């Protein structure tokens, strides 16, 4: 059909304005796809801050604060769990493994987490990715420490570095440093993009030992014993089927008040607090897309007056007003299609370049695959937007060519 060719030639005749319009649509498409992908990536990464753990148990509290202190190391637990209860939980038949943590100390602003060696095997992040040592290895001695990637980078620690643990969570602590009891770094963890990067892990026995009162390391080594309390327990179950039975049992535990949290549910709850931000981001990119289409409509409308002669020529050789309408619509459709194609190309190039960087720096895992349903819906809406933006000038052209006929009034 000559109209497709005519539309293309006509657009080619206005290369600069066409190119600019294509670029503005491409940018809005790229922005929308990037925001969408980052949003999904952020949500995914957040929900997978911890994986492989079926349940987290702490002293009676509510879900979100518990998640905040146990996983994000933000804030403090108001109560601890006794060691007896911890043992009782560990021995339940539904339970496959337990990893205790004890909180309360810090090192130069980074939280110190007392735990057991099994932590490095059981605690997973992302899509069930186990912790990996960048340098060194797990604790070999009571006064060994494993540091997260960010701690190592900021404080320039490597295996063998010495560090002092101070009481409380403040960045600077003048009074309560356990400075006679330095820990030696035994290992540095690879970056995970989770709060583990900002943690200093020490053996849970050492944590209790340094609080025992003595400053004499030799004596402490002898006295190091099973801790009397733990802050929270990470639990892996033998079978998921036991989840709710165990949760009910622990929530109704008689010896002391406990709260058992299912991380998946608690994370979803926590995310719903953050999610308005993602809506704002999507809203902004939709506005950008609308602006791009107004630009498209303006770009075509602005040429209408100068193209009245072109329309009269077309009418003279036998084109009807409907043909003119179609010509203008085709132009809008081509510009939109080109914009979408470029936008998708730009977005995916960007993902390919940024993905490894984001993964390493922020632990943010982008999903680079074919556009998902949401992306396709967005692209479909953008295509409709282009058509709608093209309709107004096309309709004006139709009216004009109908009124003008062969003579430009």
């Amino acid at each position, binding site marked *: 059909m000559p109209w497709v060719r005519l539309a293309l030639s006509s657009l080619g005749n206005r290369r600069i304005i066409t190119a600019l319009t294509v670029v503005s649509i491409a940018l809005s498409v790229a922005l929308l796809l990037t925001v969408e992908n980052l949003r999904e990536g952020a949500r995914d990464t957040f929900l997978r801050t911890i994986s492989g753990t079926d349940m987290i148990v702490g002293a009676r509290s509510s879900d979100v604060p518990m998640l905040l202190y146990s996983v994000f190391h933000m804030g403090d637990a108001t109560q601890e769990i006794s060691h007896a209860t911890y043992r009782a939980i560990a021995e339940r038949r539904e339970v496959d493994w337990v990893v205790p943590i004890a909180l309360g100390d810090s090192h130069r602003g980074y939280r110190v987490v007392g735990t057991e060696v099994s932590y490095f095997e059981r605690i997973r992040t992302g899509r069930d990715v186990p912790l990996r040592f960048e340098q060194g290895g797990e604790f070999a001695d009571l006064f060994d420490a494993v540091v997260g990637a960010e701690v190592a980078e900021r404080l320039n620690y490597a295996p063998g570095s010495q560090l002092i643990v101070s009481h409380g969570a403040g960045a600077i602590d003048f009074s309560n440093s356990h400075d006679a009891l330095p820990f030696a770094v035994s290992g540095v963890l690879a970056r995970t993009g989770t709060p583990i990067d900002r943690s200093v892990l020490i053996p849970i026995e050492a944590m209790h030992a340094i609080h025992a009162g003595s400053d004499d390391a030799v004596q402490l080594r002898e006295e190091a014993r099973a801790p009397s309390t733990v802050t929270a327990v990470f639990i892996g179950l033998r079978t998921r089927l036991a989840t709710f039975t165990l949760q009910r049992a622990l929530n109704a535990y008689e010896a002391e008040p406990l709260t058992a949290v299912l991380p998946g549910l608690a994370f979803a709850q926590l995310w719903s607090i953050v999610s308005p931000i993602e809506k704002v981001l999507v809203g902004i990119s939709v506005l950008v897309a609308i602006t791009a289409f107004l630009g498209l409509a303006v770009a075509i409308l602005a040429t209408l007056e100068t193209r009245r002669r072109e329309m009269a020529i077309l009418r003279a*050789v036998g084109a009807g007003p409907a043909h003119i309408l179609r010509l203008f619509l085709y132009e809008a459709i081509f510009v939109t299609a080109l914009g979408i194609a470029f936008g998708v190309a730009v977005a995916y190039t960007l993902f390919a370049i940024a993905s490894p960087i984001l993964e390493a720096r922020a632990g943010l895992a982008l999903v680079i695959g074919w556009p998902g349903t949401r992306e396709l819906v967005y692209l479909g809406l953008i295509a409709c937007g282009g058509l709608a933006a093209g309709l107004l000038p096309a309709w004006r052209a139709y009216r004009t060519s109908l009124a003008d006929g062969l003579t430009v009034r």
Partner: protein
Amino acid sequence: MNDAVAISALRYAYRGPSAFSLEVADFAIAAGERVLLVGPSGCGKSTLLNLICGTATPDRGRVEVLGEDLTAMSGSRRDAFRARNLGVIFQQFNLLPYLSVIDNVLLPARLAGESGAATVERAQALLAELGLAESLWRQKGAELSAGQQQRVAAARAFLLRPGLVVADEPTSALDADRRDAFLALMMAQARETGAALLVVSHDAALHDQFDRTVAVADIAAKQKVTI
């Protein structure tokens, strides 16, 4: 043989910012006749052209072109009829600036669905006959001189051997020498294809080249409509 144009008892009202009405009691152009239509600007020439070409429809009366009653046709039928049976030449800027010369000439053929090899050959022959060198055929319409553009427009108008060619001030953008040469070319083509020729001009000096000269005022009454 049918008249090229036969208008009877026509009344047309333009409802625009400067509303007017135009009445034509009776006007005909015989087949193959060459008519010069003269009149000052604003006398209703353009409206008359639109009515004959089917891009405007009268409120009353009949407009027959080549024996077909345009007023009985739908808009799209009239458009198709125009593509196939009418040639139109404007005063200037006849070409789509972004199409090549040959594509400009072939426009009506493409719209009439007759752009086969025979038509392309005829287009090339016409361009050659009208003195347009082959080297110009692939150039864009906008790159040609005004005189060349008019000749391309003539090639386009006569391409499908139409029964009627309508030209609106086709020579006013040309100097005297080129004007005469162009008129001669048009006449020759009209003779060869048997097309009737209706040329509108405010320049009555051209009259000796036509079979008949008609003053718009003699056939049409234009009145301002005051609301």
